[in-house]
Structures are given as structure tokens and as C-alpha cells.
């Protein structure tokens, strides 16, 4: 589970092998992952819902970066556009429309926190126990070679193999729209 220390130290000291693209990518990944996790942690800890939103933006942005590293450039754009551009705006509106009276606690009591942490640790532990030990028979050892842009590949997939889900997604959005209109409107 722990990274083996020797290569890391060696690399950092520039001994063997020379700093290459792979290492840079890795470092970028770790940096972004750290940011993403920090944002997530911040979201949990922050006591102000507005700060929550900002931490979330940090995470979402970092994840977009990670998407790039993982060869999903189009997805990164979508992530930034929809999440940061649409969802976060929506959420900020939501926050502003619901001013709270007084200073209410943003997190539950110690019991709830403990329970939440236990559940999260349990879930994480289970998942990690599985994914780190599993072998993935279909997965290639190395990242696959991807063309410079994945957009056309995705487009083909989306409108060919997954045309039906695409249509369903549109209905989903329609429903969300109608429903939100009805429910959120002043009575």
C-alpha cells in the first residue's frame, strides 16, 4: 500500500533515471489529487456553507486536471463547464436564496461525526481492500494509447452505442426542469 521509498528518494535526488515525462505526470497527479482531497476535506470541515462551495470548486477543478492526466481531455472541459460553470452557480444561488438566521452548526454533533467517520472509513476500507488486491483481467497494465483528442471518439460512442441513454438523459433534464419549476416556484 505504501509507496516504496527507495525509488522516490532516488528520483528526487536525480540519481537514476533522469526526470522524465512519466515522473512529471505522476507528480502532477499527486499534486492535483492532494488538492482534490484537501478540497473534499475542507468541504467537510468548513463551518460556513459558502466556504463549502469554494472548497468544492477546488476539488472539482483539481478533478478536471486529473481527467486531463487520465486522458480525458473532453471530459475535463465538460467538468469545468458543467460543474464549475453551471452546477456551482446553481448552488451559490441556492445558498444565497436560503439565508440562515443566526449561527447554526454546519456539522452534526460528535456522535453524528463519529458515526459518519466510521461509515466512511468502513466503506473506504472495504473498497480499498478490494481494489488494491483485485486483478483486473480486461485492464491493460499501461495506459492505452489515446489519440490527441478524445472528442470524436466520444462523439461516436455517444451518438452510436449510447444513443438511447443520451435520449434518456434529455428526458431526465426535462423532468428536472419541469419539476424544479413547479416545486421551487413561490406557491
Amino acid at each position, binding site marked *: 500500500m505504501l509507496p516504496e521509498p527507495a525509488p522516490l528518494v532516488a528520483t528526487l535526488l536525480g540519481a537514476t533515471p533522469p526526470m522524465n515525462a512519466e515522473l512529471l505526470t505522476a507528480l502532477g497527479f499527486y499534486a492535483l489529487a492532494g488538492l482534490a482531497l484537501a478540497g473534499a476535506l475542507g468541504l467537510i470541515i468548513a463551518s460556513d456553507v459558502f466556504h463549502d462551495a469554494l472548497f468544492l470548486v477546488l476539488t472539482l477543478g483539481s478533478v478536471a486536471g486529473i481527467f486531463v492526466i487520465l486522458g480525458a481531455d473532453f471530459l475535463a472541459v465538460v467538468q469545468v463547464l458543467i460543474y464549475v460553470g453551471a452546477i456551482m452557480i446553481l448552488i451559490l444561488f441556492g445558498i444565497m436564496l436560503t439565508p440562515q438566521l443566526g449561527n447554526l452548526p454546519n456539522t452534526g454533533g460528535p456522535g453524528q461525526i463519529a*458515526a459518519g467517520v466510521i*461509515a466512511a472509513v*468502513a*466503506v473506504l476500507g472495504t473498497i480499498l*481492500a*478490494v481494489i488494491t488486491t483485485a486483478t483486473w483481467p480486461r485492464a491493460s497494465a499501461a495506459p492505452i494509447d489515446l489519440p490527441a483528442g478524445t472528442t470524436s471518439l466520444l462523439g461516436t460512442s455517444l451518438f452510436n452505442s449510447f444513443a438511447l441513454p443520451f435520449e434518456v438523459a434529455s428526458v431526465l433534464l426535462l423532468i428536472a426542469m419541469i419539476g424544479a419549476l413547479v416545486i421551487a416556484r413561490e406557491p
Partner: protein
Amino acid sequence: MAAQAWIIAALPLLAFLIIAAGARRSPLLSAWLTILAIGAAALVSLIVFGQVTGGTRVEQSYTWLPLGTGQPFLVGFQVDSLTATMLVVVSSVSLLVQIYSLGYMAGDPGFARYFAFMALFTFSMLGLVLANNLLALYIFWELVGLCSYLLIGHWHERPSAAAAAKKAFIVTRFGDFGFLAGILFLYWHANTLQISELAQKVAAGQIPESALTVGMLLIFCGAAGKSAQFPLHAWLPDAMEGPTPVSALIHAATMVAAGVYLMARTFPLLEHAPVAMGVVASIGGFTAIFAATMGLVSTDIKRVLAYSTMSQLGYMMMAIGLGAMAAGMFHLVNHAFFKAMLFLCAGSVIHLVDTNEMPEMGGLGKERPLTFLAMTVGALSLAGIVPLSGFWSKDEILGAAVGSPILFGAALLTVFLTAAYMFRVIYLTFAGPHRGQVHDHGEPTSMALPLVVLLVPTVASGLIGIPALGSPIAAFLEPGGAPAAFNPVVAAISLLVALAGIGTATVLYSGGKMDRSHALQTSLAPIHTLLVNRYYVDHVYNWIAGGVVLGIAWMADNFDKYVIDGMVNGVGELAVGTGGWLRRAQTGQVQAYAWTLLIGVVALAALALLPLGLR
């Protein structure tokens, strides 16, 4: 006629059915229906008796209950000497008692019911003696018990009568429990319930003696219950709560004698089971003396007669147990007549004074000379004074007992006691001045007539036992059996002992005075107390029934209520309680719900993964 002997039983049944169906609305019609039917039955009985003395024998069987495998259960009737004798005795005594009842029960609100049940009883009793197999016999055996129950409880508004009726039924049922077991026991050893077949198999040695002994002892339980033999005797004195004619017919002449009859009927089996015979004889002998002692102290005239009946039945049992079946039956017949008469006399007296208590009687010979006469003759016969009937049969029994010193002694002592308590009754009732109120309504002819008629056999029926005639009874009842030997020495001794008894009674009670007996009572106080309390047997029974049985029942009932039902309700409460507890887990907090969901996933996954050992 003998081939249609079932008619004898059917006639009273018919009367019962007609009364039940509607004739009960007219009491007098009911009574006469009964009398007519029983009269006709008595007539037919006599005819049949005549044919049987001529050698006719009949046996017929019908399927009662078919079985899937093997022979069906049969019922049927037979006519032989024993049956014929009993038919005559039962039907004639019953007829006389019915006639007597016309007067005795006059004005009773349950008049019609009384006669209906009397008819039913006569039917059952006749059926009992006609039965040719143990099953049929048992059926009628229970029916006479039922009639006894119904008639003892005739005045059901009297709590004592209701209790006595119940007691009679339950105690005899206790004996019947053994009877039924005995029947089954014999059935599975002999594969038949036909008495004649059983007798054949026994004679052929096909049934091991041990089995026969057990079977006969069990059957004797039934006989002991019915015939009030120790220790199942406790019901008979109480049964005197019934109307006196009922006591005369059922509890003196016929039903109680059914036990003796049963042993006589199964005598061909019994005689091959010496141990059983010994038991029968011992119980009989013991009961004879045991009951007689209690008769000495009772102040209730009917109870004295009841103890006397028990005692005499013991006598008969002893005779049969000693192998003198014919003698026992001879005594049964004689006893039936004179004891019925004695009871009817007692009824007549009670009618006069409206009480059973002898201390409140006295001097009644003036009002009822006929009764006085009849009762005296009956008492003499019972005491065994020559030449009355009791003398002859009692003598045969004593003769049979000679070989067994203890039983012989007991029998002799009983003779003494019998004579003593009977003359105590005679003195207390008829001699001296009136001690209580007398309400003389006059004695109707219907009550007087039976007494007169019964005097005849009381005097004469024993004469058939005169040694000069050979022993026709034994020849008739037990062809091939040993003829009864008349033993003049024994006869003389017993006569002397009886006279001694009479003398003792005279000393104590002559002139209807009670002061001398009181003095004796005081000097023998512990014994008197013991006797008055009937040896405390009833106390023991009450303790068993009310203490032990009801105590166990109490435990069972509470076990049912608290343990079993407690567990049942506990399960229910547990379920509802668990539901309520789970319900509280539904806190309304959505995050708690989410927590449950996630923990559920982890748990499920863990459940699935753990068997893999988490490589």
C-alpha cells in the same frame, strides 16, 4: 319362547320409550305402562324359566361393530339356568316394587319420570342378565349404573341426593375401569368376548393361568364396585338418599347383586384361577363382617339395611370365591326376595313417620301390624333361622367355608352380627312407645300387597335347599359341579350363633329402650366412633378426591394458565416489543437512514467477502 327371550328386556324398554315420547304427561298412565310391561316381562320370564328347567338352552349373537380385520364385536343374548333364574328374580321383584311405588310415590312431582327410569332400569338389568358376552354385559352394566344414578338423584333438589347419585356413579365407575381393562385383557388373550367361548378356551387350557388370574381380578374390580365390596363400598350407604322402592329394587335385590351374578356368570373362568378365587373369597368375607359391624351402630333404618346388603353380598362373593357358585346364587335369590321385602317394610315405616331415623320411631307395630310381621319374618330369614329361606342358603355357604377356618370364623361372626343388628332394627322400630311423630295416612293396598306376596318366597324359597331333595339348585345352576353338602353340625352352630345374636339384641334393645345400648356405647366409645365414622374410609376418599386429585388439577390448570399461555403471550409480546424497539431506530433523521444504508452495504459486502479470506 326362550328363543325370543330378548322380548323380556324389550318390554320395559318399550314402556320407557313410550313414556319418554309423551306418555309422561299423564303420570298414572306412565306408571301403569311400566307395571304392565314389567308384568308381561315377568310372565314371559316364568315361561322361559319353565322351558329352561325343561332343558332348553338358547344363545344368539349379532354383529355390533364390524372390524376391518378379524371377527367383529358381537352382542347377543343367551338363556340358560343362571339367566332364567335371574330373569325371574329381577322381573318379579321389579314388578312388585313398581306396584308398591304406586302408593309410595303417589303425589311426587317426578312420578312419571320415576316410572320411566324404573322401566329403563328393569330393561337394563334384564339385558344384563341376558347378555351372552362380556361386551354386551358391560354395556348393560353401565346402563344399570346410569339408572342407579338417575334414581338415587330422583329428588335432585336435595343436595345430599345429588351428591350421593354422583358418588355412586363415580365409585362404581372406578370399579368399571378395572372391568373394562379386564375385558380387554381377556380379549387379547382369548380373541373373543363370548362367555361360552371363553369358558371353552379356558377349559381347554388355551389361556395361561396367570393371564386368567389378572383378567379375572380386573373383572372382579367391576363386580366389587357394583356389589359394594370393600374398598369400593362407600357409595351404597349414601345411595339410600333415593326413594325407598329404588333402594329395594336396585340397591338390595338386583343391581348390587349384579356383581355376584357377574362372578357367577364368569365362574367357568374364575374356577381356573385359584388366586383370583382366593381374593374374591377374602374380599367377600371381609366385606361381610366389615359391613355388618357398621350396621350395628347406624341409626338410619335404610342404612342399616344397606350395610346388611353389603354384608350379604360379601357373603355371596365369599361363596363364589370358595367355589360354591350355586350356593352363592341360591343366597342371591333368597336375599333378593327378603331384602326387597325388608326395604319395602322400611319404606312403609318411613312413610308413616317421614324420617329414616330409628330413634324417632318406636312402637310402630301398632299402626303397621303387617309390616311388623313381614319385617320380623324377613329379619329371621336374614338371620338364618330355620326354616326360612335365609337359613338354607346361608347354611350352604357356611358349609362350603368349613375348609377355611378364617373365613368360616368370619362368616359365623357375621351371622351373629346380622342377627343382632336386624333385631336391633325390629326393636327400635316396632317395640315400645312412639318416640317421634306419626302421620298415619293409611297404608294403600298397593303397598301392602307386595309385602304379602314377598312373604311367600321369604318363607318358602329356601325349601328347595332341603337336603332331602338332593341338591337341585347345584344341579340346575352348575351341572356337573359338586353337589352342596348339607352339614348338620354347621347348621346347628350357625343357628345357635344367630339365636345368640338375636338374644344380644333383645338384651340391649328389648321394649325399644335405648339406655342399655347407650351405656355400652359410652364404654366402648373409641370403637363406636370408628364405626359411626365408617372406619373413616369416606374421609380417605374425600381426601383423595378433594385434596389429591383436585390439587393436581389445580397445578395443571395453573401450568396451563401461566406457563404455557405465558410462553405464548410472551412470544407475542416479544415480537411487538422488538417491533417497537426497531421502530425507535426510525428516528426521522435522514442522515441516520443514509448511515444505515451504507453500513448495510459494508455488512453485506463483508458477508460476501469474508468467506474468501480477503486474499
